[in-house]
């Protein structure tokens, strides 16, 4: 089993979009998948509730009070961490995970908190010792925007160049309404989007 924690201090950075899409991709590829929601708002579980009955099943786990058991036979576990998390809480969730995916937006307002979060993460023992990789995802990029270039430079300076770059697409919103992932969309709509996910998927497999 590979356990993936999706986390950032700040809300609204696309955490749930990334967590639900990862879970949906794993399930579509045939892997027994569980999606744990630690957020009080339970938006990941809400996504799951919308999921079409024909889509491959995903086990939903409500972890908003505390983390619990994972069903035996699970091959991939995706944990959607709450926003406004304290480092202590991240540390507790990190015990349940093999790696951390950190979505970051190309926004000036996000930079300071992201920098602080990454620095704190790097201090945690399993991360410091290289046992649990931190994979940064540049999220909701606009093509050729100056903000995107700024983000690249900023992340390089932090020593966390993005593992993947995901464009801002209306597609994600449409899919979310049906509880689906980018891999469930017709290929002609989603080929470009899916290609952006590949490096992240590969990095997760290698870390696991």
């Amino acid at each position, binding site marked *: 089993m590979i356990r993936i924690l999706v986390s950032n201090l700040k809300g609204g950075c696309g955490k749930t979009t990334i967590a639900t899409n990862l879970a949906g991709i794993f399930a579509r*590829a045939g*892997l027994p998948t569980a999606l744990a929601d630690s957020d009080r708002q339970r938006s990941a579980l809400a996504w799951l509730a919308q999921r079409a009955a024909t889509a491959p099943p995903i086990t939903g786990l409500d972890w908003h009070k505390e983390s619990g058991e994972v069903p035996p036979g699970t091959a991939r576990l995706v944990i959607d961490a709450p926003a406004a998390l304290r480092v202590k809480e991240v540390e507790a969730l990190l015990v349940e995970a093999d790696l951390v995916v950190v979505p970051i937006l190309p926004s000036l307002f996000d930079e300071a908190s992201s920098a602080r979060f990454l620095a704190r993460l790097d201090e945690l023992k399993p991360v410091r010792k290289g046992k649990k990789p931190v994979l940064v995802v540049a999220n909701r990029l606009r093509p050729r925007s100056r903000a995107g270039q700024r983000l690249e430079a900023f992340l390089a300076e932090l020593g966390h160049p993005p593992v993947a770059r995901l464009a801002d697409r209306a597609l994600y919103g449409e899919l979310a309404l049906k509880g689906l992932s980018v*891999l469930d969309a017709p290929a002609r709509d989603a080929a470009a989007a899916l290609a952006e996910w590949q490096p992240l998927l590969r990095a*997760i497999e290698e870390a696991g």
Partner: protein
Amino acid sequence: MHIVRADRKFLCLSPKCDKMVTRAEAAAPAGREVEVKLAVAAHDLERLAAAPMLTERALRTTRRELLSTYFDTRDGRLWRRGVALRVRRIGRRRVQTLKGPSRGTGAAADRPELEVAIESDTPDLAAFRDPLAFELTGLVLPGELVPVFTTHIERTELEVGWPSLDRREAVVAVALDRGRIVADGKEEPIAEVELELRHGAERALAALVEALRAIAPVAFETRDKASRGFALALGLAPPPRKAGRLALDPEDTVAAGLRRIGLAGLAHAVANLAPAADGRDPEGVHQLRVALRRLRSALSLFRPVLAETDRDRLNGEMRWLLGELGPARDRDVLATELLAAIEPIEDLAAERAASAELLAEGRPALYARVRTALESRRAAELWLDLAAWFELERFRENAPEPTRFDEPLRPFAAERLDKRWRQVKKLGRRFEQLDAERRHRLRITLKKLRYGVDFFGSLWPETAVKKLAGACADLQDRLGHLNDVAVATQLARDVLAVAGTDPRAPSAGLALGAVIGWHARAGRRLLRQAGECLDELLAIEPFWREAA
């Protein structure tokens, strides 16, 4: 040439099998593949198939055409995970097979294998209905699997009854495969014989190999078809392998010990034949040389019970092969380990590059020599001889006192280890005053002691063995580096002699001179450390004496 692939019990010679436990007592295989693969010339396949020795014993003969397609992701992820996925056409049927990496954990160590009938030629991992399939492959997105290569095989399979030692008949499936591997327009012929034990004593396989040898020239084949296909399609070098850990039984006799140690050594050697011939990874030739030295060391440890004629013959052949591999290994040592010493000297960067270039240019010729030797009939016969000698206990035949083989192994091992120990002690006296020649003798004797400890260690408690083996290794390390000066000097002379009037020769000479100087300077410190290591080693109460 290609050599054996077989299981841990008979000859565990598969490149993927990392556990090399051989067992003296033959027993019916339970849920495992026990097989040997032989490479033959295509024109000899017919001859073997028609041999009365096989046809007269055949219980059943079948002929089939097998068309198998192997799948992987474009970036070769399955192969890198040690996983092979194949869809095989057998007439109208389609069978999908997934093989995982061998899991070397004790008796249950096996290569996981899933098999299921499917409807089309396209693989479908979900069809296995087993979470193990996904555990083996990892995330594979829909449409990501592409055909990498195909094998076209005409298989004649004879099920042969073979008399075994205890007069119970063994049944062996003899598959004669002829065909080709096709990848991306590239093609490689297949001509091989696979012997798989259906039931009965494993020795029957070795006996059958001996019988086949009498009909046509055969050689052990070490790579399975999947490895060959991936090598052809993706241009991957076969991975070298280190010696496995040996597990002897305290109840073993001298013969059983010799048999297991010999077969493990042989398995180590043949696993590295393809990597050595390939040459891309210097570790291949290195591991093959280690295996040969260990085998020679085993013959020397068992010297009191062995026939001199046998020992001389096998030793001679192994010495010949070591000699053919030596120059390639020496060059690699100089180009990698020794030359690295002057890497920090920036002013010598150009000179270092010049010598690296000269060394790299000499490499193909040296590896051509390695390949010629490994592909020779002489080498093929050596492996087959060793296999029969150890597996069928041919070592009994010319032995001066064959009954000694039935004595218990442990006291014998203790006596042999003690002899080496006393030699080390004697040679190490007044260590600081030893000249290079005597230090060299100490190093060689120590190496023999170390191999002996490796071979026989499993007969004694692990911690005591580890302590002594660790102290040996520390000393060996120092003595080895001390020896580097001599090695570097000799190699530098050879390289410069070959370079002759090459315009880079003076630069290379300067760099190699610096290498020699660096190692000579390191020598003084190493000498002091070696003295300390020797004292530490000799202060240990040898484990074999405590138990005796």
